[in-house]
């Protein structure tokens, strides 16, 4: 074990941190935005539509993300028509290829997570909201989704961690994020353990932070008395409408 190498590795690998984080965060955001309508379709739409969404999520959840990445990166690049099209501006760049793959993958997982949440919202709650005169869109926005989101949060936390770890695959398409930096450095110093241990530690730190953040959010949105007591005054003053949009009265 060579500590000088490890210290050097901390410095070098940190330079890949920005790329790892931006890939993870952007993929999660794009995936989430995409998954909300898909989850509603999957949970409540006509069987034909629901099955179409299922086939998308099934394929993306049933194959390794590495294969998906290679399909998007090398596979699409092989098709002449794609190279001639406007999409090539995006697909030409490894960063956008990785981001596209990760977003589609994350959307598939998040859709299923949210769908399970949506389906476990008690029927009585939505019926009550409808009885109060809320329109279907309002019920979905103000009642069903917030409750479903809170139910889904622990599972979504796993998806956040999974995507953070999955971003390491970007190193296979020439991107120099943390793992890419590590492999680059290993190939120059021939010191695999020191460097991969440092890389592992960096990811562990990131994923631990993500877990902590999810747990914090879970506490914030919890409906049992303890957490709400100190939540309400904090938000009530700054965000007056919060009580309206907050999940679960």
């Amino acid at each position: 074990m060579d500590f000088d190498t490890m210290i050097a590795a901390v410095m070098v690998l940190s330079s890949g941190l920005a790329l790892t984080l931006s890939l993870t965060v952007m993929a999660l955001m794009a995936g989430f935005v995409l998954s909300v309508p898909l989850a509603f379709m999957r949970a409540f739409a006509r069987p034909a539509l629901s099955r179409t969404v299922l086939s998308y999520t099934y394929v993306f959840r049933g194959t390794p993300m590495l294969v998906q990445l290679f399909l998007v990166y090398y596979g699409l690049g092989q098709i002449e028509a794609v190279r001639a099209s406007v999409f090539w501006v995006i697909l030409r760049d490894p960063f956008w290829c990785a981001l596209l793959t990760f977003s589609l993958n994350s959307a598939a997982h998040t859709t299923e997570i949210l769908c399970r949440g949506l389906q476990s919202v008690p029927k009585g709650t939505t019926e009550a909201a409808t009885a109060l005169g809320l329109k279907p869109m309002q019920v979905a926005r103000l009642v069903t989704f917030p409750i479903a989101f809170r139910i889904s949060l622990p599972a979504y936390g796993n998806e956040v961690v999974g995507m953070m770890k999955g971003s390491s695959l970007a190193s296979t398409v020439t991107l120099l994020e943390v793992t890419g930096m590590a492999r680059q450095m290993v190939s120059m110093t021939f010191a695999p353990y020191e460097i991969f241990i440092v890389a592992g530690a960096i990811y562990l730190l990131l994923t631990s932070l993500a877990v902590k953040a999810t747990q914090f959010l879970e506490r914030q949105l919890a409906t049992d008395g303890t957490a709400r007591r100190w939540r309400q005054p904090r938000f009530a003053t700054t965000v007056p409408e919060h009580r309206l949009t907050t999940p679960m009265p």
Partner: protein
Amino acid sequence: MNGFAIQFAGALLITIGLGLVSGFLGTVFGLMLAILKNARTPRVAGLITAYTTIVRGVPELVIILLIYFGGTALASKIAGRYVEINAFTAGIVALTVVFSGYATEVFRGAIAAIPAGQAEAAKSLGLNAWQRWMFVIGPQMCRLALPAYGNLWISLFKDTALVSIVGLSDIMRVASVGAGSMRAPLTFYLAASALYLLLTTVTLVSIRSVERRYPALGR
């Protein structure tokens, strides 16, 4: 292309072998760790928590690279003489480590979900620790853990793709070698996707049928 079809068939067997062996070993380890974590001193529980946290918090790719490169050196040091760890063993060890990390948490959660009164009742009936586990806790835990445990198997078969990096001729490696040498990435990666989808579908169907046969008790 015919040559590659034969290669894919061999690769499918390697991937299945990798998955089955490391899934089985991972289950055994995960079960042991989960039982230890529930029953033993805080220090043991803390160590096990550290293990599962690390395994679940570090990318599978990094774990595999570490074990492939670090494994031989570590094993040689422990044994005091040169020990060869071939690619298949390295792959199995890496996947077992990953699988057991997640399985421990799944089993532990399932054990914790069984009301404490059950064990106490069994104790008062005069069952010893082994009997309590075999006849009371175990069967209920298995049923409770089944859905999450099934998902672990699906993830496992997908994670085998990462092992191609250490040179095993699994599905992914055959695909990337073929994609490169025949310069037909689309065909080869689509073929690989289809094979993985087949594997995960078979896994899913088997898990579902077991779930139907053994639903969680009292639900």
